[in-house]
């Protein structure tokens, strides 16, 4: 199962936890499975079926450009973070 890291601001949605292992082959499946464990977290992580604008997902060190469609491996490390905007 993938290891999911939430930045600490999100811990109130995840029972006070910021790191957890979650099953899923895509970011969407991770979010769906997180929602089963922590009802309400999905509305924080997603918006109209896509990744919540303003959030970024980093999978194995790379910021995904596929959002909820990004593939995840069993040994992946997945971070939900505030997105960075450039100038």
């Amino acid at each position, binding site marked *: 199962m993938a290891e999911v890291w939430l930045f600490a601001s999100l811990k109130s949605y995840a029972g006070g936890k910021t790191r957890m292992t979650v099953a899923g082959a895509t970011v969407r499946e991770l979010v769906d499975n997180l929602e089963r464990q922590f009802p309400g977290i999905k509305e*924080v992580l997603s*918006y109209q079926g896509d990744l919540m604008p*303003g959030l970024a997902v980093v999978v194995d*060190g790379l*910021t995904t450009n596929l959002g909820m469609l990004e593939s995840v491996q069993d040994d992946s490390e997945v971070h939900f973070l505030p997105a960075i905007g450039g100038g």
Partner: protein
Amino acid sequence: MLENKPNIVLANKDEAYTVVGTRPPRHDALDKVTGYARYAADISLPGLLYGALLRSPHAHARIRSIDTSKAKALQGVKAVVTSAELPDLSGKIADLGEGNRANYNFMSNNILAGPKALYKGHAVAAVAAVSQIIAEEALSLIKVDYEVLTAVLSAREAMKDGAPILHEGANTLAGPEARPPSGAAPAKPTNIANRLEFKLGDVAEGFKQADVIVERETHTKAVHQGYIEPHSATAQWHADGNITIWSSSQGQFMVRDQTSTVLGIPVSRVKAIPMEIGGGFGGKLVVYLEPVAALLSRASGGQPVKLTMSRTEVFEGTGPTSGTHITVKLGATKEGRLVAAETHLVYEAGAYPGSPVGAGTRCILAPYDIPNAYIEGLDVVINVPRSVAYRAPGSPAAAFAMETAIDEMCRTLKMDPIEFRLLNAAKEGTRQATGPVFARIGFVEVLQAAKDHPHYHTKLNGRYRGRGVASGFWFNASGPSAAIASVNADGAVSLVVGSPDIGGTRTSVAMQLAEVLGIPVDRVKPTVADTDSIGYTSVTGGSGVTYKTGIACYEAAQDIKRQMLQRAATIWNIKPEDVEYTKEGVLQHKSDPNLKFTFAQLAGRLNNTGGPIVGRATVNPRSPGNAFATHLADVEVDPETGKVYVLRYTAIQDAGKAIHPTYVEGQIQGGVAQGVGWAINEEYFFNDQGRMMNPSFLDYRMPTSLDLPMIDTVIVEVPNAGHPFGVRGVGEVPICPPLATICNAIYDATGLRFSELPMSPSKVLAALKAAGKNGA
């Protein structure tokens, strides 16, 4: 030690490129130096009307009513509009393309004030008339009934209990991650729009391991991007309901998307034409004028309307970057190993949420390997113009706090500042305090190049002279991009891209296409196209164009190459795999050396051997590569005036691969110039009513060529594996180190540690006097 000559490129000697890494003239050079390049304000159309904006004289006021009747009655006035003409976009949020979340209702209210004016200079109404003079006269006839409210001008005031609230619906303001969980009681109204928090390891335990602890608090003021070209937009609302916009921006697709959303019309009805841009630095990533010009055009019966800001309007009505308040606490062992860090960042967002505090939190500790860390960030709204992106948004102020604390730590430990940084530098595999692990990065190589540079070893003599060192980090960003390349009969290639060219990117992306095809770059004709003529392309920002559009051009060139191989094979009646494409752009039969075409020869035969060849590519690459920089500065402080003279400046930076080294050097030098201005001159100076007292370049003091020495550069090339030539973004990170570099140099010169920017002559002189150090 490095050879002592200016502007060194530390390249991989094994590379064998013919175009990449060279310094050809830019394609737009002649038009720009001869004045023929067309900028947004140059637009002239039949029936053109001239617009003007009425702006709030109050920093915080409720708008009870607006009476436009007298203005509409003035002869020559064709239209007057207010926010009443804009649709309600409550709750509609979207991604601005680089991860910035936009609340479109806020954006709409910022364009034309809704129920409240939230800063002095906030646009309230707009007029279109047959002349600029009549439009401006009509503004004086608009009567706005304001209920003046108490303004909140700093985050400290805004966070106090009982502070006036800018947005009464504060619950909807907080980012979703900061909202109370479902079912919880709604939070009471607040000006704190968002709170971010990160934890790594055990911070308390980390500080127990520390032999030395350093704590610092820093403050920076709002500063403006200072682009030389004021905002200008012309719009025409055609009879068929379509809109054409000519404007200066960092992304015509951004203009199209934001305008269509703010006006509530389908995106396909807006065509945005990019004009040349006279600087942006993040300040032209949002629209201010385009939707207003479109509304005025519609209300005028379809006549085109042009709106152009004055410099004062640019200062008072467009976003500077945030003022900030940051605390840093660092713990290190006596051997110099960082073991713990705790930071708190407060960024002033201006009138609407959305400061770059998220980036600040993710950048502040990024250069260092620190096992135990805590970071908190607050986004606070106040009654000044809404902050927008400015070159590595959020990172320079964070680096100012962190890198001055590092300098203090080095002095406490009596360690060389570069050795200390080398000991703690992030490298491939380092876990960032915010969680993710770095891929291949070049910070160690940058520090080593700084340590080896003659500047670092040159003795600095004289009283009140000192040397400073500081580093900086920026993520770099990517996004979707597109390229279309057509082979002409004479062997030239017409290249169409969607990235507005701010820093010479027409040429830097054309060079990548030319390298693949084996043709000279002057045989490529790059054009930046409108939104109907090229695939969606994300904004020119995040130091991303040479990376993402470069990859699009690389792939478009590969597409051409495949078709050219096929075409030669067809002509010779052989298989494509029996044709070789050489680095020099020659197609030759692998077994018959007499059969060959130059690129131009084959290009001349396309139309009667199967038709034209067009290469195309659409990409959304995900590995822009992180950027690190380390700067060295020598300063002299005049003890009688407090003025800081920069005597020598060297900037060392990892560029991955410098496609056009001159442009990379230019980006580095430009970033340093802006950073030095931020350090010692620039600030928004507000009076107690929220009025900016220095809204002109006479009083808002940006550095000129007389204020700066030659800025020497060292380009370090640690290739980015996510780009075919190894490119990393280069445009933003050079603005990150100068604030702390200058501050550390002033400390070295005077023994005075400044914690507030700018370190202006009056402030430096006051500190010298207080320390009994003034007087020659």
